[in-house]
């Protein structure tokens, strides 16, 4: 731009010394350019105008880390290895997100389903990345990303020797659920007469099934299949009792952060990375949400 204006100015101005004209022209055009471009000249675009004051997108950059609320007692979505380090499908996604943002990944561990929303609503974590099923009821308290990244459903996991074949099987006398989970909602709706035993955490409920303290535990079908594969004494009872999608959750009102995550969710799936990650952790192909990916 400055070159153009110096050319035009050199054309219009009386021909004195061409060098002096060039310097004058350059200075003038630089001034014009500066006046037109405003304060952003010479400054990086690190202060865009956000719709939300205090968006997590800015907090994350300032802090230098991405805080995800993740289960670490729910393999293979999230668990701990021999050295107590977090590993899992959701953990990997968090790491990828952090890499894309150029920050470190910090896991804010949640141990119960009910702790996910409060952790993000209060700002202790930036995003819920914890096998978070989408329900319209929850959507009143938290903003979900769209598209979802997992398609699943609730199912029963039982002890293989019990021979329980479905949710209406007369052998099914008691069902365990984790408080505040979609399993809780599903089984209460399907079998209001059932003796429902609530647990705080999913390992506790799974232990109860293994020990015979409850006949079944209602959890995500993919998780049930995974656990049954790990432990032959358990069996996953299909087909799923419900259809659910899982997405990530952010604080209500933080639309800038939500938009970034929406885009990440789309690219993460369209690139095939989601399918690869699922295959890595579950050992099976993921249930396709979209025809293409």
């Amino acid at each position, binding site marked *: 731009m400055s070159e153009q204006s110096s050319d035009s100015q050199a054309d219009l101005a009386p021909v004195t010394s061409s060098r002096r004209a060039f310097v004058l022209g350059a200075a003038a055009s630089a001034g014009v350019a500066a006046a037109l471009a405003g304060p952003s000249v010479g400054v990086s675009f690190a202060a865009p105008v956000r719709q939300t004051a*205090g968006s*997590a997108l800015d907090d994350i950059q300032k802090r230098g880390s991405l805080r995800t609320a993740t289960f670490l007692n729910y393999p293979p979505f999230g668990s701990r290895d021999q050295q107590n380090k977090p590993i899992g499908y959701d953990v990997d996604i968090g790491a990828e997100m952090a890499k894309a943002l150029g920050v470190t990944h910090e896991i804010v561990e949640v141990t*119960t*389903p*009910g702790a996910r*929303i*409060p952790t993000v*609503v*209060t*700002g*202790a974590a930036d995003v819920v990345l914890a096998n978070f099923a989408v329900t319209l009821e929850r959507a009143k*308290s938290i903003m979900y990303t769209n598209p979802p990244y997992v398609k699943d459903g609730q199912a029963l996991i039982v002890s293989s020797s019990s021979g329980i074949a479905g949710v209406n099987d007369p052998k099914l006398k008691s069902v365990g659920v984790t*408080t*505040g989970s979609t399993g809780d909602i599903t089984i209460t709706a399907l079998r209001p007469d059932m003796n429902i*035993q*609530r*647990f*705080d955490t999913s390992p*506790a409920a799974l*232990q*109860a099934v293994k*020990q*015979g*303290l409850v006949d079944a535990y209602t959890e995500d079908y993919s998780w049930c299949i995974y656990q049954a594969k790990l432990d032959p004494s358990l069996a996953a009872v299909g087909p799923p009792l419900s259809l659910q999608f899982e997405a990530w959750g952010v*604080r209500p009102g*933080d639309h800038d952060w939500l938009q970034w995550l929406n885009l990440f969710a789309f690219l993460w799936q369209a690139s095939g990375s989601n399918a690869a990650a699922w295959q890595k952790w579950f050992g099976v192909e993921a249930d396709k949400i979209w025809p293409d990916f």
Partner: protein
Amino acid sequence: MMLARRAAPGLGAGWTLFRSIVWVALSFLGGTALLLLAVRQIVIQTGIATSGGRGWTPHFEVVLQNLPFLLERLLSTLQLAGSVSVLAFGLGILVALARLSRVGLIHLVATWYVEVLRNTPALVQLFLIYFGPPTVGIRLSVPVAALLGLTINNSAYMAEIIRAGIRSISRGQTEAAATVGMTYPQIMRYVILPQALRVVYPPMVSQWISIVLFSSLASVIAYPELAEHAKRLDSRTFRSFEIYGAVTVMYTICTLTLALVLRLIERRAFPVAR
């Protein structure tokens, strides 16, 4: 309750007590409310407030709407605590007598029992009682596991209290009763235990209150009592501040009333000769 001691029995004492309780409650609740408001202002002004916290407004209607059911659950908490108290007391007497036994093996087993239960957390004991036995094929339901776990845990503490009470009765009485020809069980029943009961009553009251409070641990195995319902309500509505604050106050009122009633019973049952 210093004021209560000064006032004479009758309506006067009751009114003074009531008034002092109201003043204490108002001072504490009011003071804490002011303190929290101040803290909230400070964190908001300095900008370190949590993002969700800035837009918070109190919503106590969650508690008010669910109050009937919460009170129902308070009743089941008291039922659990009552059952545990009675059973633990009975078991405690047995263990205390075993501790005082001169038979080496009984004494050793009883000492192990008391020391292990008193020096490990009740939470671990509860988990062990619920999740442990199925390993050997015994499956306890949640109510039974909660009752058993809390009873066994508290029996150890009660055994120590009772043992201290029994030992505080002078040996001279035991020896005198023996010379008169009473057998050991008779001495225990007619001489020692009645007196020991009076001595152990005050620490027992503390233990009973403690049982009411520790019954909240049963919520971790989802026993349907007050703390468990508070957790469920919270997971549904996310009004943690209001719910847990209100339920804490409910427990406080409950235990204070209980303590008052039990001490009144003490004055009636064990009148002090002045």
